[in-house]
């Protein structure tokens, strides 16, 4: 028997306050000045370097300031077809994640090119994220290629262990609790595949902590890691 928990919702996990800028100094300034330049920014870096986090933080902040914004994970949206981008030109912040997933994919490039032009006419800010720099991705449409390469390029680097633990503690803090140092170290020793997986584990620990009404400690983390992962319980 396990106790289901109330769907209380949670505070946004991807905010600027949660973002660890160490090693990626300058990114917040670049984002802040983007609307004034009315331009586009190309974020690139390997997995777990914080691309998705930044894109969502931009949307979150824009919405808090009552500015229209949209976040689109293109890898997940690829199957919906390029029509999924319709209507986006109305937004003042357009955040496209995993742009490389739709390049060289039929009508997607044409639609993407159209969206970038509309956004520029409209004075919207365009944020794009991919694993590779714009110069290294292959684009079939020459006009789109030059648009992408015209974007301000910003490389992101994954965090080292110490900064990862800082990022985890910030994430916990945004959910209203303090994560003990030794629990973070235990998590880092037992999860090998980077920050994304650590964050997933932390979310799982939060749910388990609510369900069992126990705090996140080293023995608790050990227990949760020993269990097979369960699907999240919702109302």
């Amino acid at each position, binding site marked *: *028997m*396990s*106790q*289901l*928990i*109330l*769907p*209380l*919702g*949670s*505070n946004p996990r991807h905010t600027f306050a949660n973002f660890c800028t160490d090693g990626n100094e300058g990114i917040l300034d670049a984002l802040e000045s983007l609307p004034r330049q009315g331009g586009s920014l190309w974020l690139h870096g390997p997995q777990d370097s914080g691309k998705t986090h930044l894109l969502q933080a931009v949307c979150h902040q824009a919405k808090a300031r009552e500015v229209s914004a949209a976040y689109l994970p293109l890898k997940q949206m690829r199957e919906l077809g390029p029509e999924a981008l319709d209507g986006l030109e109305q937004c003042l912040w357009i955040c496209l994640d995993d742009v490389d997933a739709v390049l060289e994919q039929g009508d997607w490039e044409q639609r993407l090119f159209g969206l970038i032009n509309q956004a520029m006419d409209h004075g919207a800010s365009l944020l794009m994220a991919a694993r590779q720099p714009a110069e290294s991705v292959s684009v079939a449409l020459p006009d789109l290629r030059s648009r992408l390469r015209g974007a301000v390029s910003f490389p992101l680097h994954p965090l080292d262990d110490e900064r990862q633990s800082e990022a985890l503690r910030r994430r916990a803090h945004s*959910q*209203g*609790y*303090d994560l003990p140092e030794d629990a973070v170290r235990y998590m880092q020793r037992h999860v090998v595949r980077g920050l994304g997986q650590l964050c997933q584990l932390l979310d799982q620990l939060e749910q388990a*902590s*609510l*369900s069992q*009404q126990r*705090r*996140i400690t080293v023995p608790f983390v050990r227990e949760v890691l020993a269990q097979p992962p369960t699907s999240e*319980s919702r*109302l």
Partner: protein
Amino acid sequence: MKFTIEQQALVDPLRKLASTAPDVASLNASVSGTDAVNAVASILIEPEKGGVRFTATDNTLRLAFHIPVEGEDLKPCTVPASTLLHICSRFSAGAEICFELEGDGKAMNVSHGRSRYKLVVVDANEFPGITSQDDEYELSLPENVLRSLLSSVRYAMAQNDMRYYLLGVLLDVGPDSVTAVATDGHRMAVAEHAVQTGVNESVQPIIPSKGVEELTKILTDQEQDLVLHLAGNHLRLELSGDRCAFHTMLVDGKYPDYRTVVPTERKLRAEVSREALIKAAERIIPVTDELTQAVILTFKDGENLEIGARNNKGDTGEEQVEMKINRDDGAEEEVKISINIKYLIDSLQALGCPDAVLAVNDGSKSMLITPSEGSSKHIIMPMKA
């Protein structure tokens, strides 16, 4: 300085003050014995118009009582809270207890009849204060309303959760209503009262659990308006008639959006006698599983509400309570739901009316418990195998 107080007039406030002041033993041992620590575990006695003021604090909470006395040459001093309560509560009712500060100000003589105590006084300047910013909001509420809101929901406060914002009661104050909310993530209690509060924009202070406990002790059923002063993370209020002043730090944090959790519709609603269900639920506790305390409630048209349980030794129990089912749909399928029996009892006890309505959809959705009269809502999440 010298004054006398009648035993009962002293002991009632003293009990509340002593539970506010932290026990010296609970404070950090490495700093015990210092004046600062002794001061926290003390009661501050200060002269004020028409009597003296007794104050206790634990650094986040401050409680003060006005006690009318006639005395001479009154000046501020402190006395140890638990010692004073221990002695004075053992004098008989009606006893006139005499307080006299020694000439050098280093000890307080407390005496009655043939009992004489000399209690060491800590410098009143060591007594900690809580500094509050200027008032930002003022709101008014009848005293009995605040009392009833807090006592309807406080059972659902989290006890030991790492999410500090759950360790208290949210007061969601709008211009024409106040809603009190408490949740520990498994169940939630929401009580609302329509009242002109005097605020223009809504405010959401979270009163920490100790503050809630102390408030429910001092609030009475009087209908006069209380003025609540909210400033930053401070809340203070004074009970009318100069009886008592209460000041607490608020929990710093954002409370989750409770509205999305309150179910708007439940297919099946069963009306039961609250008292009969509490009795049945209490009887069955020993045969529930020690860890989960799970029971299975079965709702079936035309039959009694069935409560079944089985503990880890294999003992089983079944209780039946009369119920009247209302359904929106014509379906007659039975609904089974597993819940923690303690949660059911807590909710029912908080209702305070003859009948309760249990509303369910199925075994995976929350159960909503409401009073037959009144507007509080009590939500319990089920358990799953």
